[in-house]
């Protein structure tokens, strides 16, 4: 772990009141996560494990029932707006050109339009969007939309960025390209990234550390440091270290799936059948 802790989450719990006197639902229980300055950290978990709730709490969109979110060692006066946030869907505004979409954060920060455009244009090449400045988002491919959404998040200029399954909706090939590209971009300016995915390989390939979450209630069941050397190339996923990590990470996920089986699936597990 590096010296400076950028983001620290301690004892975070969230309970939703049951609707109409129904049972309370615990979405998160005692979640703790730590991210050093410039680190790339991922959270892996099945759907319904509380990842989105966790993200919304860190982004300041909802308040936790208990626990704290520390930025640079202290609780910010206003968490909302302190952390960069990229939702699962690209959320590009169809009525704005690609360029005007990427400058949204700058614009809301009061940066003059011309200056904002210049700042964004300087990044268009690196984000693989050159030549598409004046296009409507509807004309972009899925990968380009995600890159435009990422550029919007980058340009908003927050030190910490939350990325919620940004490549979840892409086809496998585009996805692999995007992962490699994201690593290159991240390598260059080393922003602190908290990345959510349900893809274990993606998490290992990208991250310095991977947290595994299991659901009902959502909690951290495992934390693994990824020591694979950087810069990483796609071939790293064939290495024995990678496979070992994958095995290690998949075990709690499978257990979680089996344990949570009562909710979705009453069939006996393979082991029980044997």
């Amino acid at each position: 772990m590096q010296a400076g802790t950028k983001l620290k989450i301690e004892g975070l719990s969230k309970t939703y009141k049951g609707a109409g006197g129904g049972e309370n639902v615990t979405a998160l229980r005692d979640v703790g996560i730590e991210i050093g300055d410039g680190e790339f950290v991922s959270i892996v978990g099945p759907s319904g494990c509380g990842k989105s709730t966790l993200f919304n709490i860190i982004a300041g969109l909802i308040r936790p029932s208990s626990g704290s979110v520390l930025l640079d060692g202290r609780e910010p006066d206003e968490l909302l707006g302190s952390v960069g946030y990229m939702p699962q869907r690209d959320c590009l505004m169809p009525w704005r050109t690609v360029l005007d979409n990427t400058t949204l954060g700058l614009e809301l920060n009061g940066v003059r339009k011309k200056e904002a455009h210049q700042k964004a244009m300087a990044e268009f090449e690196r984000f693989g969007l050159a030549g598409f400045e004046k296009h409507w988002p509807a004309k972009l491919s899925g990968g380009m939309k995600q890159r435009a959404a990422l550029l919007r998040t980058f340009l908003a200029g927050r030190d910490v960025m939350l990325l919620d399954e940004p490549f979840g909706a892409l086809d496998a090939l585009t996805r692999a390209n995007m992962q490699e590209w994201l690593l290159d971009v991240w390598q260059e300016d080393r922003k602190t990234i908290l990345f959510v995915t349900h893809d274990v390989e993606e998490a290992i390939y990208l991250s310095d550390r991977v947290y595994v979450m299991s659901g009902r209630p959502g909690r951290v069941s495992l934390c693994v440091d990824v020591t694979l050397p950087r810069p990483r190339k796609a071939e790293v996923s064939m290495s024995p270290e990678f496979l070992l990590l994958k095995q290690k990470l998949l075990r709690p996920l499978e257990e979680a799936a089996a344990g949570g089986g009562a909710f979705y699936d009453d069939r006996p597990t393979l082991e029980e059948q044997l």
Partner: protein
Amino acid sequence: MFARGSKSRRIAAAVLPPVLFAIFVLAAWQLYVVLGDVKESTLPPPTDIAKSLWENRTMLIENAWVTIKEIALGFLAAIALGVGLAVLIRSSRKVERAIYPWLVVSQMVPIPAIAPLLVIWTGFDMRPKVIVIMLVSFFPIAVNTIDGLRAVEPELMNLLKTLKANSWQRFRKAQLPAALPFMFSGLKVAAALSVIGAVFAEWVGASEGLGYLVLVLNNQTATTEMFAVIFTLALIGILLFLFVTLLERLLLPWYYESRESEGEGLHLEVEEKA
């Protein structure tokens, strides 16, 4: 299959079919009247109507001008009322609950029946006409705009919050532009209704205008002249509709372009199947 050729060719492809269809209908009408020996006071042939349109052009234009002014003011008032109510209703859930049912109920009131009341209250000038037109045509604008204000992605609203956008900025930058295509759908319906409203209003108490002319000519059983007035009224409705469509294309190029490319794809699919 039409080759996607020059612009003039595409315009021809759009304009030619309805024009040919109109010629076909008028020719059939003419034949029916001439061959069937229909009395002119029952159904005049289109050629006589055309002659009447030309001979009475001064009277028609003078009265059309009166009606156009009423429609323009009434339509603008309907936009103000419809959009204003929509924004008010979407501003809070309580307001929505309190007002929305009454908005629907208001449409159960037969507006033509309250037109005489309006004349009693406001007099014989333009005011009752503008109010009737407004009452007849604000509803589709309000309902569509309400739907439009609901249409914005919740994730986009959250994203804007994390970019420190206040509620006014969220409204102006996301909700309002997302609602515009819906609003324009409402405007198109309202454009047609506003002409109907103008005729109703003039029937109740007027001394000029195309609606008033219809009433007078009906008393004289001047059927041919009545048809000339009806054609003029229809023309006003068509022009208003086209104006709204033109405005939509100018204000929402993004919407128009993405819709057009989708539409093309659909037609191609159908043609290939055929």
